[in-house]
């Protein structure tokens, strides 16, 4: 694992910075001269996880590439809130693609740079879960399969937020969205087969695949930097809570992301060439209710008669993740 917590510090290195750490051991976000890839004045909602996750990822990528970086951006909140014509928040060359073709546009940019011999300039494609797991999956799979030199970052807020919270293939079971209302015998989004794009990316055996959340900054930055050490197709899937779509308090964005990991519902790991190489262990395992309860999109599970069976099925998914990705460290025998 690239990120090694420093031991015996007042607060470990879980905080963004720490006056006791050497500057080079601190996070990119702790530096006064960080790029601030998305400038102030953007129109994301109060407490938007996507705005935060995108700045975390791009600032780290800009540092890793000495700002020799171009981004292609699918349609979605991230694009809309940063670039209402004629204003822009972006502090790097940035191109808006269509909703479904960010991967293909990035591939084109990478190909052009190659032709021009500008190998030092790196390319990022980014989009929401709708643009990635639904409409953009074909282009993305092609980019993986050709091993184009692009880092694709998906900001997963588990629905089509920009158009008013419609369900996507990344929407979790039982969640309420505008198109999966909490009515009828099985309220909310049905339990389907699930569609976890990090696993699909691993199936392409591309050089690097990772997941992260906005709650673990050090881990997120380490993964972006690691991704920039590879050439070829790379994929990072970042979990970004959406206060508007999920019905959470704007100040709870990071807490909710933390709970997604600590309950096991969102596994944090890395894979190289199709094989998992690390998992971020859960520090304090919690039951899924802790994660579900603060979110209005799951409120119907906790009515006068709690939907215990549904909650148990969600817990089973978390438990399966913990086993599958090894999220809980084996107890050391004393």
């Amino acid at each position, binding site marked *: 694992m690239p990120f090694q*917590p420093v*031991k*015996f*510090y*007042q*607060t*470990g*290195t*879980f*905080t*963004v*910075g*720490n*006056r*006791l750490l050497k500057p080079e051991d*601190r*996070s990119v*976000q*702790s530096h*006064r001269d960080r790029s*601030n890839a*998305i*400038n*102030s*004045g*953007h*129109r*994301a909602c*109060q*407490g*938007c*996880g996507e*705005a*935060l996750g995108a*700045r975390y990822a791009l600032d780290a990528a800009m540092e890793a590439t000495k700002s020799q970086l171009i981004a292609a951006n699918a349609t979605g909140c991230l694009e809309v809130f*940063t670039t209402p*014509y*004629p*204003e*822009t*928040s972006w502090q790097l060359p940035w191109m808006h693609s269509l909703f479904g073709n960010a991967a293909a546009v990035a591939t084109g940019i990478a190909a052009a740079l190659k032709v021009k011999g500008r190998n030092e300039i790196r390319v990022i494609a980014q989009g929401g879960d709708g643009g990635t797991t639904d409409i953009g999956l074909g282009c993305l799979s092609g980019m993986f399969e050709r091993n184009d030199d692009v880092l694709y970052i998906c900001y997963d807020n588990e629905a089509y937020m920009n158009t008013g919270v419609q369900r996507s293939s990344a929407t979790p079971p039982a969640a309420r969205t505008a198109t999966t209302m909490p009515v009828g015998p099985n309220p909310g989004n049905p339990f389907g087969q699930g569609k976890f794009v990090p696993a699909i990316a691993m199936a392409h055996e591309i050089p690097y695949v990772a997941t992260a959340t906005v709650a673990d*900054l050090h881990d997120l930055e380490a993964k972006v930097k690691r991704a920039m050490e590879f050439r070829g197709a790379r994929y990072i899937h970042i979990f970004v809570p959406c*206060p508007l779509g999920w019905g959470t*308090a*704007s*100040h*709870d*964005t*990071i*807490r909710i992301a*933390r709970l997604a990991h600590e309950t096991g519902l969102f596994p944090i790991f890395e894979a190289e060439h199709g094989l998992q190489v690390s998992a971020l262990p859960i*520090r304090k395992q919690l039951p899924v209710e802790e994660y579900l309860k603060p979110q209005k999109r799951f409120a119907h599970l906790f009515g006068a008669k709690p939907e215990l069976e549904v909650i148990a099925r969600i817990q089973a998914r978390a438990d399966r993740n913990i086993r599958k990705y090894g999220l809980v460290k084996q107890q050391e025998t004393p």
Partner: protein
Amino acid sequence: MRDKPFAITLDPGSSLANHTGSWRTMKPVYLDRLPPCNAGCPAGENIQGWLFHAESGDYEQAWRVLTLDNPLPAIMGRVCYHPCEDVCNRGHLDSAVGINSVERFLGDEAIRHGWKFDEPAATSGKKVLVVGAGPSGLSAAYHLARLGHRVEIHEAGPLSGGMMRFGIPKYRLPRQVLDAEVARILDFGVTLKLDTRVTNIEDSMRSGNFDAAFLAVGAHIGKRAFIPAGDAARIMDAVSVLRSMEGEERPQLGRRVVVYGGGNTALDVARTARRLGATETIIVYRRTREKMPAHNTEVEEALQEGVMIKWLSTIIHAGEHDLTIEKMVLDEKGYPQPTGEFETMAADSLVLALGQDVDLSLLQNVAGLEIKDGMVQIDGNMMTGHPGIFAGGDMVPSERTVTMGVGHGKKAARHIDAWLRHRSYVPAAKHEPVTFDMLNPWYYSDAPKIMRPVLDAIRRQSGFEEVQGGLDENNALFEARRCLSCGNCFECDNCYGVCPDNSVIKLGHGKRFQINYDYCKGCGICVAECPCGAIKMVPEDA
């Protein structure tokens, strides 16, 4: 206007033009809150403040911040019952920060390196008499000297330290530590006159041209209870026993010693008797362990050393080699009531540890001075009813501990200073307290407390070696870094990092942060993710 491509009518602009701060209904503001350790320190130490410097390994600066409030850290680090640790927020997480052990480490470092106090303020030309060289008197003298006054301590005894020397046994406070910290205060310009008993305070003040006085003679007359006793019964009081430990002649207690009482002094004298060779040391106490005023650590250590405690018992007769005991029960109010059941108990001597009275002889006929229940009465400024005469420590109504005495000395010094300058001392308003629920403990890594080494029980039963050891540098640093910095920014950069709107400005090392209200949307993530509770949300109109 410059030519634009097809269908483009506006110049490219920056989102900085869009002041999203106008969305806000609540805004985050930085503040310092009062950590529970500071609030709980009887000497008013800025514990979080000095730990902050210890965390970075700057022990001298830590010691300097500490000694702004308390000039006796090496002593405190040994004898204080550390109420700060009982309320430390880290206790909710794993266990309290070992504040007392870090304090001792700093105090010992200062002695080892010979650190001196910073030069005092400009001299005031005023002269203050301090009566008594115990913790309270020494603390007052130090603080008065800091404030620029000339200070003379008159001590009736042959040595300084008061109860720290004549009450606290060596195995808890080695005398070279006491001597070193007293010497540093004297080096600071305080004059100490030993064997100088003040018999009449007004006379002493007049003859020495003192402008004010601070009385801190303590309480060292052991209370006697009436116990019917045979002629040959050996009955002593605890203070005299402990005091004679400092002289040439060790007290003769015999093989079977019974101590009567339940306070810290009872424990100290019982543990001393054990070390003097008593084969059997029994404390007789009329109530239960829960009701015992002695501190738990002392009780624990005494039990480890083989001291026995007989609960719910009173002594009703003392003979030459035995005592008669009556069993008690607690009534519903928790008071002990006799049962009429008796037993006898072998004992060569009986030591009474039933509390101490104040020697008030120096206060005869002082106009306005009020004495109640054998103690000097003071107002909120520590002044007695006689203008210019202040009092503190064990001779005024209060909890009787070394730390409390040091606190009194500091507080009195500030009021004496104000009184001498015809001002009134108004302490700075206290910050609002910070409770555990205001912290975000996720950011603190697990770090269990380091226990100080303890001398093994066998050696503790035979000698007066110090029982509790100190921490080495690594341990002390680790322990200091366990501090959560409750309520006070320690520049972890969290607020700066977690703002989705880049609206936190990092001002640079030591300068903390500032909110850019032009863009802050008031989401409150910075408040939720501040580990130490140093930001709060307030309504925009307030």
